């Protein structure tokens, strides 16, 4: 079992079609349910220390909070509480809604990105925070904005031989949160989800929606509209009912939901607008 990134990349260079195994919470379900044929080459990543760490790099100049790079193998359990949760409250909220404690002890952001389901709970947070995804192969390194990384339902730009090593997120001043609707409270895949993150330094807001399109969606119209209506650099935001409602409607207008076994397009479209509006109210509290 490889214990360094270089060893992983060397294996992938020889066998670019090898399956990369992180927490196993997606891959093992597919194997157990016979949705995927028996793998003959698996590279298990659980011993690769470089992927299991995260680090905060404080900003050198202005008032910004610097950046945090999270290894692709850091489990959700580590984001629920403690220092990471304090830096990224929205990521902590999303992490707490993933599966059950057993799933959160195994599942990772790298796995969420690799699977790239539009219902992945970590992904709206990464998109709302403009995360950069770090990819490496034996031949090159590249850094891809998460919005460009995700290209469709369970499709991303990862190429054979490439490994997701981690993501880098900016530490922003301002409220942020994640909300999700599902059929029950614990252990549920999102029917619709949303992340809202304020950037008080720049007077901006970002909103990303999950499970209402082929991939995670950003609501640029709603973001720009709100920044025009309100001074988002203010410490205390005044949000009227009317403003919250219109914000939700504008965010929902960007959704492209479908009918499937989990819900209907109409419900998802409605729910995601309610989530966006509710997040904005919470931001003002």
């Amino acid at each position, binding site marked *: 079992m490889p214990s360094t990134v270089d060893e992983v990349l060397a294996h992938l260079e020889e066998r670019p079609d090898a399956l990369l195994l992180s927490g196993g919470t997606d891959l093992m379900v597919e194997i157990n349910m016979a949705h995927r044929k*028996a793998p003959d080459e698996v590279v298990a990543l659980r011993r690769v220390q470089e992927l299991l760490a995260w680090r905060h790099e404080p900003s050198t100049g202005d008032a910004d909070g610097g950046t945090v790079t999270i290894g692709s193998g850091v489990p959700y359990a580590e984001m629920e509480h403690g220092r990471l949760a304090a830096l990224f409250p929205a990521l902590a909220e999303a992490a707490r809604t993933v599966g059950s404690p057993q799933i959160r002890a195994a599942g990772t952001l790298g796995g969420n990105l690799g699977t790239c389901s539009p219902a992945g709970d970590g992904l709206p947070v990464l998109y709302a925070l403009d995360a950069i995804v770090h990819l490496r192969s034996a031949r090159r390194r590249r850094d891809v904005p998460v919005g460009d990384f995700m290209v469709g339902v369970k499709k991303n730009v990862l190429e054979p031989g490439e490994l997701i090593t981690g993501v880098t997120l900016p530490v922003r001043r301002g409220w942020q949160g994640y909300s999700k609707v599902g059929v029950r409270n614990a252990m549920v895949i999102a029917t619709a989800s949303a992340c809202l993150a304020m950037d008080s330094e720049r007077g901006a807001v970002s909103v990303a929606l999950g499970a209402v399109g082929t991939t995670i969606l950003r609501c640029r119209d709603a973001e720009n509209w709100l920044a025009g209506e309100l001074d988002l650099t203010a410490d205390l935001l005044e949000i009227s009912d009317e403003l919250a409602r219109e914000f939700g409607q504008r965010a929902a207008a960007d959704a492209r939901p479908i009918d499937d076994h989990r819900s209907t397009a109409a419900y998802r479209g409605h729910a995601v607008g309610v989530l966006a509006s509710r997040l904005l109210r919470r931001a003002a509290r």
Partner: protein
Amino acid sequence: MSDIPIGAPEIYRLTVNGESHDVQDAWLGESLLYVLRERLGLPGSKGACEQGECGSCTVLLDGAALCSCLVMAAAATDADIVTVEGLTQDAALTDVQAAFLDEGAVQCGFCTPGLIVAVHHLLDNNPAPTALETREALSGNLCRCTGYGRIFAAVDAVVASRADQASR
């Protein structure tokens, strides 16, 4: 060792309940749950959903409570694995198991081994959980018989008796 599990392993070794076991003739995609039950003769961990939803296969892997159905066995070669069979060294019941019996927390019994492991994991890391913390910690273990009331009562009983012992 460094070539495992790259390529189809013919034999690999797992450390379960402190003992080393050779796993032979396994197929690479086999879950830890399958290997424990079908190859190592440890049927305490139960298989129900096979997709991480029910928690009846919960084991400890390097101290973390995980669903063994979602662990690829060949990737756990260096891990310290504890199953429900390994929570007690002799045939005696653990305090959690005894409390489940005393409080009537066992009905059909299928979810019980997973819950026993999850409760041990909870109380070893948090000796005095709040009601919410207990519910959260056990939210990955489904029980369709008890309605959970008797299970929470068993957890409370263990918390009280451990606190009582500690204060003596």
